């Protein structure tokens, strides 16, 4: 990076005056002011000039390096701007400039692309000249050097801004542009949670799509439906399904003429991601997987042939699944089995694929233990875990979460799965996990959380209200002895049903976190994140 910067400085010294004007104009654009027609023409001319100068300075190979750099810088923005959430695509510099470009139908696509690249170069140079402050413009690109503490430019994720009408309008416009159906909320929402969406399972968003869907790939439509109906549940399962669907999408993708695969494919993925998040809000693991894929796509060199590029992407997805999920669970099992001794009584909650895997492995390695499965309404996921464990031959007991105080004196260890690990050490997991950790602490039973590192996310959260997911409230209705008390809850004005999906467990309730990097305390999560960011 250093040499090219030096060369850039040289090229800039060649045309400082133009650059000054260019910088001004670029700055004006950054601040969102309207450019007059003369200014735009001037800009065009200067860019062409600038490009010619640069061409004189360097040969063709450097031009490619520029292109690569430009494409690398673009995805570094999502890395710093909105971690862990669905990355709405207009983070690329190209997207922010496309409204401007759209006003000039006279320009050809190649010229626009060249302009964009040149602008990116000059912006980068100008930014390096000045001190990097907390510039809030959409096209700011703070470099992720590990020694500096980055001012994080964050946009609030949409799914926790439901009570803000401006945000809702913005979302509606974006979805319209992407031709993704907007899902409407259902039922009376408890006032504490008016900032979250609440959907009904009976109205999936696929009802509003025409068949065959023009914009959204059919495997994505199927995936969205499976998410919204709860057919695929559990963060590992959702991520793996997502990656397989993306593999299919890449397989069927063909680059349109005059477009580059590395840019166009990323743009194609954004309506799919919007659609999926309408079906069900993305999980932290899915967000990390999407970020990884986008980075890989943008890293494809432009001279790579399409077939070659597709093959490379498929391999990359396969290796992600293999490394982060499958091998990680093997590593975690290895560590966790050391913690299981003969005669143990282990308590698990709900259905975590990782914890089930650990227990099955331990049973195969001839450890003698028995398992207590705790379950809760309305999801009753523990029954699935019970089936899997009983099939293996493990001795199991089954209780509901209200019987926890009764059963806990028998328990020697508690194993919990996690949906995500937040940067302040809190564990985000299925609702009820924090309760189990609380009561276990009161009875002095050790609590071990098992979580792969790809689920670590940079968000912080201290309670279960600010960011959560509300499931279909009708799930709470139950018929007992022929009577359904809550049947007409919609008609009663002051009655609300609350069906939370996640809750956060404070780190003082958790004794140990077992990850594929080893066994760490809860508070070491930001350390792991930092190390991972440096590596990547």
């Amino acid at each position, binding site marked *: 990076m250093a040499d090219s910067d030096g060369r850039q400085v040289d090229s800039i010294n060649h045309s400082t005056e133009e650059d000054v004007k260019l910088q001004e104009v670029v700055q004006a654009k950054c601040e969102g002011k309207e450019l007059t027609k003369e200014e735009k023409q001037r800009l065009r001319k200067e860019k062409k000039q600038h490009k010619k100068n640069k061409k004189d300075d360097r040969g063709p190979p450097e031009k490619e390096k520029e292109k690569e750099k430009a494409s690398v810088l673009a995805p570094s923005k999502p890395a710093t701007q909105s971690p862990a959430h669905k990355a709405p695509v207009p983070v690329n510099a190209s997207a922010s400039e496309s409204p401007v470009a759209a006003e000039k139908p006279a320009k050809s696509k190649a010229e626009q692309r060249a302009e964009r690249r040149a602008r990116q170069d000059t912006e980068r140079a100008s930014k390096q000249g000045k001190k990097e402050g907390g510039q809030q413009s959409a096209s700011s690109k703070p470099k992720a050097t590990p020694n500096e503490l980055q001012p994080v430019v964050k946009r609030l994720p949409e799914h926790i801004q439901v009570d803000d009408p401006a945000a809702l309008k913005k979302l509606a416009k974006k979805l319209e542009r992407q031709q993704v159906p907007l899902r409407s909320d259902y039922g009376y929402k*408890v006032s*504490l949670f008016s900032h979250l969406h609440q959907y009904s399972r009976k109205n999936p968003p696929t009802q509003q799509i025409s068949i065959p869907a023009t914009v959204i790939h059919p495997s994505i439509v199927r995936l969205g439906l499976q998410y919204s109906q709860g057919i695929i549940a559990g963060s590992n399962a959702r991520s793996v399904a997502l990656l397989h669907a993306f593999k299919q999408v890449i397989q069927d993708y063909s680059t349109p003429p005059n477009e580059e695969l590395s840019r166009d494919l990323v743009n194609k993925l954004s309506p799919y991601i919007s659609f999926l998040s309408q079906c069900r809000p993305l999980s932290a693991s899915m967000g990390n997987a999407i970020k990884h894929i986008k980075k890989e796509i943008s890293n494809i060199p432009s001279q790579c042939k399409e077939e070659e590029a597709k093959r490379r992407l498929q391999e990359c997805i396969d290796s992600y699944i293999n490394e982060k999920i499958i091998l990680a669970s093997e590593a975690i099992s290895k560590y966790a089995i050391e913690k299981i001794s003969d005669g143990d009584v282990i308590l698990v909650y709900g259905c975590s694929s990782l914890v089930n895997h650990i227990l099955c492995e331990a049973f195969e390695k001839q450890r003698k233990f028995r398992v207590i499965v705790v379950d*809760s*309404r*309305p999801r009753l996921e523990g*029954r699935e875990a*019970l*089936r899997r464990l*009983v099939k293996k031959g493990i001795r*199991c*007991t*089954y*209780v*509901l*979460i*209200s*019987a*926890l*105080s*009764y*059963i806990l004196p028998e328990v020697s260890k508690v194993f919990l799965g996690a949906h995500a690990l937040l940067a302040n050490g809190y564990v985000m997991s*299925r*609702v*009820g996990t*924090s*309760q189990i950790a*609380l*009561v276990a602490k*009161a009875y002095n039973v050790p609590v071990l959380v098992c979580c792969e590192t790809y689920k670590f996310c940079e968000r912080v959260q201290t*309670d*279960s*209200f600010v960011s959560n997911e509300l499931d279909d409230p009708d799930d*709470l209705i*139950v018929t*007992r*002895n022929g009577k359904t*008390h*809550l049947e007409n*809850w919609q008609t*009663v*004005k*002051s*009655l*609300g*049903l*609350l*069906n*939370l999906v996640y*809750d*956060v467990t404070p780190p003082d309730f958790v004794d140990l976190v077992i990850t594929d990097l080893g066994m760490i305390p809860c508070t070491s999560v930001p350390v792991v994140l930092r190390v991972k960011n440096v590596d990547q």
Partner: protein
Amino acid sequence: MPGADKETDLSERIESFLSELKRCGSGAGSLRGSAETARETTALLRRITAQARWGNAGDLMEIIRKEGRRMTAAQPSETTVGNMVRRVLKIIREEYARSRGSTEEADQQESLHKLLTSGGSSEDNFRQHFAHLKANVIEAINELLTELEGTTDNISMQALEHIHSNEVIMTIGRSRTVEAFLKDAARKRKFHVMVAECAPFCQGHEMATSLSKEDIETTVIPDAAIFAVMSRVNKVIIGTQTVLANGGLRAVNGTHTLALAAKHHSTPLIVCAPMFKLSPQFPNEEDTFHKFVSPHEVLPFTEGEILSKVNAHGPVFDYVPPELITLFISNIGGNAPSYIYRLMSELYHPEDHEL
């Protein structure tokens, strides 16, 4: 003969009461509230006093003790029955002492001197015959019945002292006392109630619909979300099945978790319990007071093959230690858990603790 008819009639009534007790304990919580059980028990004891054959207080106490033992054996978890029996026994002792002319205070004081010198004589004390003893005892039992009728109202009257406006109150399951308490407060104040549904019987649903009919903002939450929402709750108000002698509770399952969550967030835990729920039992280390329902409620038969390989437990009650409780609200006012043992000595005689 009219005497024999009365006797058979009496024993019939006792038998039917016993069979009802046995039946109502099987699942679905209590079909009748504890207040009703207490009233019926007291009415039955009054009838026994009126119709059974007895000559002196000692005989009456023997009869009542015998019937009381049968009743508690029919449904051990329904402690109000035993409590009422002990109350009546205490009434008999008091009336006897009054008839004899000695003051209550002198009798109650158990000085060391008295214990050593008058050990055996207390038995004979109840053998004297008094003509008006029957009438006095029945009158006293009537007073007890009126007291029982007014307990719920007495407790609800204190509601406004404890609930201010814009509060978020959490409760669990269904307690008629708490229902009346909250409805009374809702007449004057606006607040929000969160009801934990308390699986597997989900009695919280009934509670929520009944509260929302009175225009109280109610939310039903599953048991798993208790800790998640506890940080926004201002008070936890619960009912209970029994108040134990150390100030602890035997309440519906899930209450211990609720109490721990409230303690963690320093939220006050208020128990609305009328005095007839106070029982002289102490909690044991072993689970001897646990009661279970059919595992079918927990893991239904539709689950098929795994049923035979799995143990499923469905406990009905939880023990809540007194350190987690902030306040008891009963028909005689508010008390701290540390005062419960004193109240107990006013209600029951120590010799009646074991029936």
